[in-house]
C-alpha cells in the first residue's frame, strides 16, 4: 500500500514535464495520449512508490497535479 497518492487534473496540464522529472521516486511518466488541448499529461506508472510528498504539486506551474499522504 502506497504512503501517498497523486491526483492529476488532466485538462489543466500543459505537459511541461516538471513533475515527471522531479518526482523523487519516479512515480510519473508523460503519457503518449493527449488531453483536449493537445498536451501529454503525466501518467502514474508506479503508484505504489508514491510517498505523497507533493513535490509534483509544488513544481506544477499549472496547478494540475498534487500529491498527498493517505490519512492513517
Amino acid at each position, binding site marked *: 500500500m502506497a504512503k501517498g*497518492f497523486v*491526483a492529476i*487534473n*488532466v485538462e489543466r496540464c500543459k505537459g511541461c514535464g516538471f513533475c515527471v522529472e522531479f518526482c523523487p521516486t519516479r512515480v510519473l511518466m*508523460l503519457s503518449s495520449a493527449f488531453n483536449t488541448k493537445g498536451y501529454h499529461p503525466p501518467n502514474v506508472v508506479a503508484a505504489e512508490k508514491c510517498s505523497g510528498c507533493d513535490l509534483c504539486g*509544488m513544481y506544477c*506551474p499549472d496547478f494540475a497535479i498534487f500529491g*498527498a499522504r493517505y*490519512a492513517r
Partner: protein
Amino acid sequence: MNEQTLEIPCTIPADAANPVEPFLRMDRMPHIWCPACGIGTTVNCFVRALIESHANLDKVAIVSGIGCTGRVAGYANLDSFHTTHGRAIPFATGLKLANPELQVVVYSGDGDLFAIGGNHFIHAARRNMDLKVICVNNLTYAMTGGQTAPTTPGKVISATSPYGVFEPAFNLVALAEAAGASYVARWTTFHVKQLSRSMEEVLHKKGFCFIEVISPCPTLYQRRNKMGDGLDTMKYYKQASKIRHGARTTECDMTKSGEIIVGKFVDRDRPGYFEMLHAQMTETLGDRYAEPEVMCEQC
C-alpha cells in the same frame, strides 16, 4: 514516453483537493502563462509559505506591476492590486502606511521592478519600508515578446538585441543589498522547498525583504537562444546552481550559461520605517505627537 491511457491508478480519497486552490481565484483558471513558465511554480511556493506561516489571509495584500509576473495579483485570492508598470512598490508603500496591519507583498518581474521601477525599488529599500518583494526574474520582458531587460545577460539574443546583448546586466541581489534591503535571497524555480522557506521567512521578518527567483521563459528567452525548453532549463538550474548562504552579493552575477549562486545572502535588522518615524516624532514633539490614524471612518 509511455503507451498508456490517461487512467490514473492511484486511489484518490473523495475529499482530496489541491491545497493551492483556496488561495487562487479558481474562477479565472486556466491562467495565461505559457507551458513550463516558472511563474506558476513560484505561486505554489508562495501559497505554501502562506500556509506554513499561518498568515491571516484577510490581512495579506498583494501588489503587482505589469508583465507576466504582474498577473499573479489577478490570480491570488487576496486583496490584490494590478497597478501600473514599475509602480507596484510606491502603491504598496501607500497601502502599508495607511494600514500597517496589512502584510503587503509585492510580486512582480525583473523589468517592472528594476527598469521602469528601479528608482522606486531603491528608495523603498533605503527607507526599509516593510514590504516583501518577490521578483520573478526571467531575464527578459516576456509579456511584450522577449525584449532586453536590465537583467538580460551579455551575448543573449532578444527581440530588441537581435545581434546579442552587450550592456552589462544588473546584479539584483547586490543592488538590493546596496540600497539597504534587510533580507536578500536568490533561488531558482528548481529550488521549490528553499524558495518556499525563504518566502515564509520574509513573511515573519520586518523590513524591506527581497527574494529573486530565476525562472524560465521557454517561449521567448530560452527559445530565441536555443537553450531548450522549460524542463531543460530546470535541469540547468539544478546542475548550475551553487547554494552559498552569506555569499558576497557583488560576486553573484548572472551569466548566459554559467554558475548560478543561490541562497540567503543578507538577513539583517535595520530600524523599520514606522519605528524611525515614531522615534523622530516623539523625540521632537513629545506629547504633542499624535499617533497616525490614517484610515477614514467607516460609514
